[in-house]
């Protein structure tokens, strides 16, 4: 890695970690109902919303009601998104006159945005009206993120409360998350993005003269280019903060209207991991021991930095096939060197690989380079980060509740290995919690590997694998790893906008989101009812270095054992072929 790369990545990590405590403290105040400043101004509006919607904010829910309300709310949103896509040609704010989105694509996209995945089988600027982008997709970016954070807060309450029957009120958690956390941050980030040149308008697409006229494949002169327009900045801000990732344009954050300058890129990158990282401190604060939050953050950061180094190193080393062609891949003052295929020159290796690692560590899925063009080892990193269950920072809320489930498994494993009492934060971990935790770690691999197998053995699945052989398999595995873990990024190369992939991908996203949230809430409900046992010598301390190492081991081993065989058929063998041929 180059000194410039070290500097940029180091600066990023320092700023990220420095923001964990203030933002985490603020979010804890929001969820605990303490005064935090903004509530004085927006409190009357919050109460008006409850009155209009008939919500009794002082009434709490048990886990079952909380889960059912969350499910129904998400499915109502899903239906609205589907309807808006199918009816957009009758609706306003459609200056390009786009027709209705096809049923299978609308189905996949509706699930994708409601489930916080933001997998995009369509190209935004050639498919969606401005109204659909705003009212369907951007709104879901807010509320799907808020639903994930609400689920996390319910689990934290389950850990923090003693002999309680309830875990909070879903409507209150949803409203407070959106109003006090996501909206203010999104407004600030959108303004920063606009200042850097990210567009925000309702203009029709514009024809502009080319600075360098060219000729098309038939030899005809091309002197103009059609530039897409639209309200991009407002969607970009929440797509990053809410770890949604769905781009306004097809090229996502590689498009200069969506990510215009290196500074815009830095802020977008920061927004990807900001809330998931800060939630660790919120967790520690809410359970009354911030060391617990720092320990979980340490686990995430150690795994993240190790895999980031692998990805940057692989890309900086370059592509051996380019070396054979005599292409100069060495870093210099004039170029970043390395494998620059599919990467923006303005971002270089460090910012592209950092983004690829961050976007797949979080369940974000936005891209500023094309992951399909990464070296096999460089491409393995984002794929494996998703397959680890999106718990390395992970999605807003979902990442931390996934990691807390791993922590529960870790204390159980410690109990089996060294005879420690399986307790987490003073709550006894018993058979019921372990069975629910097992569901959480088993469902994504079943979904990912099952649908991947189906795609590579059926004619419908094979019909749109355009890259034959090993790389084609990697593309299919990546697609289902992404949808089956609610990430949303794509390896591309695979024709995924057809009924087979839209249907199977849609189902993968549904199971990955809701069938993990349900057992998580069941754990929350079960833990809330339990007493908090005073700390003694029996249980394993969960805030020290030993536990950090144990938790890293559990996450890596579960991820490795489940997916290494499939990875061996894709990127691993591809790496060996690239260097051995």
């Amino acid at each position, binding site marked *: 890695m180059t000194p410039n790369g070290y500097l940029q990545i180091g600066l990023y990590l320092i700023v990220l970690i420095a923001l964990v405590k203030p933002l985490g403290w603020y979010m804890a105040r929001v969820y605990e109902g303490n005064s935090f400043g903004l509530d004085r101004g927006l409190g009357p509006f919050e109460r008006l919303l409850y009155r209009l919607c008939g919500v009794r904010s002082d009434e709490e829910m048990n886990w079952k009601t909380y*889960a059912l309300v969350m*499910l129904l709310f998400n499915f109502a949103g899903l*239906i609205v998104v589907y309807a808006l896509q*199918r009816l957009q040609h009758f609706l306003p704010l459609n200056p390009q006159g786009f027709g209705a989105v096809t*049923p299978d694509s609308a189905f996949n996209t509706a*699930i994708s945005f409601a489930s916080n995945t933001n997998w995009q089988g369509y190209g935004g600027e050639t498919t969606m009206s401005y109204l659909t982008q705003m009212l369907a997709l951007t709104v879901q970016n807010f509320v799907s993120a808020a639903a994930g954070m609400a689920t996390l807060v319910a689990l934290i309450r389950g850990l923090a409360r003693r002999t309680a029957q309830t875990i909070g009120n879903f409507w209150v958690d949803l409203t407070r998350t959106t109003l006090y956390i996501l909206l203010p941050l999104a407004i600030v980030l959108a303004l920063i993005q606009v200042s850097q040149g990210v567009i925000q308008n309702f203009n029709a697409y514009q024809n502009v003269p080319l600075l360098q006229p060219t000729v098309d494949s038939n030899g005809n002169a091309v002197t103009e280019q059609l530039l897409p327009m639209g309200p991009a900045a407002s969607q970009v801000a929440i797509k990053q903060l809410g770890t949604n990732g769905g781009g306004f344009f097809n090229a996502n954050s590689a498009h200069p209207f969506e990510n215009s300058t290196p500074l815009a890129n830095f802020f977008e990158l920061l927004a990807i991991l900001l809330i998931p990282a800060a939630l660790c401190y919120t967790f520690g604060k809410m359970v009354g021991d911030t060391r617990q939050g720092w320990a979980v953050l340490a686990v995430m950061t150690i795994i993240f930095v190790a895999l980031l180094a692998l990805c940057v190193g692989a890309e900086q080393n370059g592509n051996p096939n380019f070396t054979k062609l005599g292409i100069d891949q060495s870093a210099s003052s004039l170029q970043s060197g390395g494998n620059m295929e599919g990467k923006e020159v303005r971002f270089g290796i460090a910012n592209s690989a950092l983004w690829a690692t961050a976007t797949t560590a979080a369940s974000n899925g936005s891209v500023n380079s094309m992951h399909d063009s990464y070296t096999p080892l460089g491409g393995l990193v984002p794929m494996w980060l998703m397959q680890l269950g999106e718990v390395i920072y992970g999605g807003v809320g979902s990442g931390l509740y996934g990691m807390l489930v791993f922590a529960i498994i870790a204390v159980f494993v410690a109990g089996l290995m060294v005879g420690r009492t399986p307790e987490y934060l003073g709550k006894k971990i018993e058979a*019921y919690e372990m069975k629910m935790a097992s569901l959480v770690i088993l469902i994504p691999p079943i979904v990912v590997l099952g649908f991947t197998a189906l795609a590579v053995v059926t004619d419908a699945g094979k019909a749109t694998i355009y890259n034959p052989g090993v790389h084609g398999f990697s593309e299919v595995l990546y697609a289902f790893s992404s949808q089956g873990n609610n990430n949303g990024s794509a390896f591309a190369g695979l024709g995924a906008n057809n009924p087979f992939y839209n*249907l199977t991908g849609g189902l993968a996203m549904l199971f990955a989101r809701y*069938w993990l949230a349900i057992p998580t809430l069941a754990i929350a409900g079960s833990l809330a009812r339990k007493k908090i046992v005073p700390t003694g010598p029996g249980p394993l301390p969960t805030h020290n270095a030993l536990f950090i190492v144990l938790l890293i081991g559990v996450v890596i081993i579960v991820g490795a054992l489940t997916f290494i065989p499939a990875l061996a058929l894709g990127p691993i063998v591809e790496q060996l072929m690239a260097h051995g041929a």
Partner: protein
Amino acid sequence: MDILYLGVVLLFLALSWGLVTFCDIYKNNRRRS
């Protein structure tokens, strides 16, 4: 086609409802026993 996809979503919702109910009943049965 719209009805077909709506049916898939409703089926999943019903299955999810079933999972919630199963987790709840399973927990309560264990406590009673």
